[in-house]
């Protein structure tokens, strides 16, 4: 066997090992109930924010946001996010919350907003606007 072939095999083996370790870290999309079943495990929670449940006082502590998240099944959990309030979070119909359940609450690392501004819904919003313009 040629040296290049040996090196090729070794490198491919390394890449596969790396990818396997990546898959080992891979997590899942969860609901409130299933996330509560595995406390301490990093998950992606898909939920929306309960109205009027948000607490954020940037003057006091800009790194503390908390609210109640409700998933599509109606279960809820308190969420704590140690960062600033993402713009438009109140308007977002769907949140992807990345973090883990710790004790009684969900310790959130990162929030991804699915805003109405994103294209499809945007067209609906725009329609409404056009309707109101014609009235």
């Amino acid at each position: 066997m040629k040296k290049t072939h040996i090196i090729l095999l070794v490198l491919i083996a390394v890449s596969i090992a790396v990818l396997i370790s990546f898959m080992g870290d891979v997590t899942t999309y969860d609901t409130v109930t299933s996330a509560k079943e595995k406390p301490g495990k990093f998950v992606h929670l898909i939920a929306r924010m309960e109205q009027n449940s948000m607490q954020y006082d940037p003057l006091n502590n800009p790194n503390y946001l908390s609210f109640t998240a409700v998933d599509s099944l109606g279960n809820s959990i308190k969420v704590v996010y140690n960062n600033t309030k993402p713009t438009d979070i109140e308007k977002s119909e769907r949140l992807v919350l990345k973090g883990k359940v710790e004790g009684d609450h969900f310790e959130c690392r990162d929030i991804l907003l699915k805003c109405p501004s994103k294209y499809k819904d945007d067209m609906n919003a725009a329609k409404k606007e056009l309707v109101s313009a014609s009235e």
Partner: protein
Amino acid sequence: MEFVGEHLLPGQLGHFFAILSLVASLVATFAFFKVTNIKEINEKKSWTRLARGAFLAETISVIALFVTLYYIISNHLFEYKYAWQHSSRSLQVEYLLSCFWEGQEGSFMLWSFWHCVLGWILIWRAKNWEAPVMTVLSFAQFTLATMLVGIYFFNVKVGSSPFVLLRNEMDNAPIFSQPNYLEFVKDGNGLNALLQNYWMVIHPPILFLGFASTIVPFAYAMAGLWTRDHNGWTKPAIPWAAFSGGILGLGIMMGAAWAYESLTFGGYWAWDPVENASLVPWMVLVAGMHTNLIYRSSGYSLKSTYVFYILAFMLVLYSTFLTRSGVLGDTSVHAFTDLGMNVQLVLFMLVFLVPSFTLFFVRSKEIPTIKREENTYSREFWMFIGSLVLFLSAFVIIVSTSLPVFNKILKTNWAVGEDPEGFHNQVQIFVAIIIGLLTAVTQYLKYKDTSKSYFWRKALIPTIMAVVLTVIIAIWGNISYDKKGIGFLIAIHLGVFAAVYAVVANAAYIWVGMNGKLKAAGASIAHVGFGLVLVGILISSSKKTVLSHNTTGMSPLKVGDKESPLENITLIKGIPTDMGKYMVTFRKDTLNERDRKRYYEINFRAKDGKENFNLYPDIIENNKGSEGVTPNPDARHYWHKDIFTYLTFLANPEKIRAQDTTTFRLKNVAVGDTLFYTNGLMILNEVLVNPNNDKFKFSPQDTALVLDISVISKEGNRFKAQPVLQIVDGAVQVLPDTVMAQSLVLQFNQVKDQEKGLLELGVKETSGVLDFVTLKAYEFPFINVLWIGIILTVIGFFMSIAHRLNLMAREKKS
């Protein structure tokens, strides 16, 4: 119904040219195909005329499409959905072009346009290779044209036209039942605030030129397989691959510069799927260019060259699919949204993937290979290893980025793990080490065989220099990135060595190996640049420090935990806040009418008194439909570092302005006095002279007085406030303190009467809301090394293109 005020002609022209471009590119494909396969000279000539004519028609239609759409956008014809959706009247002229690439249709158009430009260069220069190469390119034009027609074909919608009318797209909205509906559609939705940045005017065209140009090496490879001339194509392909590598690399890094200057993920690279999708084709293309060079000089690696060039182009198509299909919706912050063309996008990939690999495997046996093994002391051996490492690294990145695609195919529910950035960094640092080392030493090896003494004699001095430099950086560079453990820190130092080695060795090679002949030194310069890019990335990322580190509200256990994301700090207007080396003050904000941005003046004053400067991060109101604002960072550039800040939260500025009109009330107080304020009282406990405690670190040489005040609210809550009066270099400085929960600001103005012990205290109560901003501030050291590295790399690429074209021209003459 007749509608009033519509301009239908531009749209009709647009539709016409979209269809003309579809037909013309199909005719060109067929004609170039004929030219390739026909032997008879006269017939060949007439087919060539037809093919070029068709390509001319294609070029004219693509330009006409561009002009028409620009006309629609710049004249604010909001009866067209594209203009209504992507632009608005208040947009500055320079961003009208950005509206093109906010939508998918416009960016397809841009891609198509670059193919036309490249096509004419090929027709002009490619000689015998024109016909087969142009067949592939024209076919690609055809597939791109299908993306823009937007017509129904047996009830299946093909493509998405940018010339559709708003009323046809939303026909159920009642507004369109009125003939004069346009009177109500006064303005468009506007351009996404993030795209209103000058980088967004130039980054997409360059990036798309990079994407578009990957087709040329691919087309040459196809031509080689097709015509069975496996050797001939490898020569003209090299400068094209270098062109593509240079432009695509530049485009990607312009995107990084845009991210750094206008996005708020706190840096230039975030391993976002969209970034990965554009980086991976570049890596594979560069791997292909190196194997191509190996083949030209030693005869090895022809098959790998074929595979790499084909894959580089396939990866461009795949990244098109990733970014445009909406599949990344949950993982990326800036992918396009779904246009409902996913089937077409998959077909777009398959229609190139299947024929090219079929052709490759059918012809595989005839591709010349050398059975004898490469010499270990040869350039081709190590260059091949380097290409392989680049390719596999690209493979790892793209597979891990494709997780959402696997979910779609396998119906699984996987989500990216806790720290995808960390994963990529930990893997790619080893790739950087290997590639850095190989970049350093490989030039000192000759093709085929190198005598050991030659290699060591030439490589010795640069090696020693690199070791010395690395040791200096290790000792005085103060790299102590410990978030990922000691192993990663060691890897960073090794990476710094490999990168420094690459820089030094390649710079030295220009003199040691080539006797200072700069004309031929394109490769060395590109490698020096690449090494600098690595140095810049390693140092700026591992030494990035958070200035706005905030410990408010943290449990004592977590303080000092470096993983904690408490990087936001709130600045109240006019009140200096402690931020590491600086006292930082939010002074004022102003609205610029022209670019509709609100600029916030943030003053940074170094505690050692050496620096005093303002930064102006800004916010821009989002386009209609999504309220709120988009912040843009600002940075102060030094030769060795950047101070970088952006707003992360702010209260509604208009609301605050109306309320915050209060000023400081001045009171003379003595120790033990009690003062009342609206919501309670405060007691001056004592005056501390040069205190040295948890909060203050004064030494006996300082002149500082601190008032210790207890604030007690009506509800019985107790707070502590400690305003400071100090003398620094003969100047009096006051540092007010705030009790935020009580909206109270206390300022120690002066000592009124030393004998009576009377002190002047300023008390400011705001009516509920204080004017403030919340921001993050970072220090990025040595980021300029990265930018310089990129510029050098691109210069290097173009020098080697020029050199090769020169050589080819000279060969032809002799």
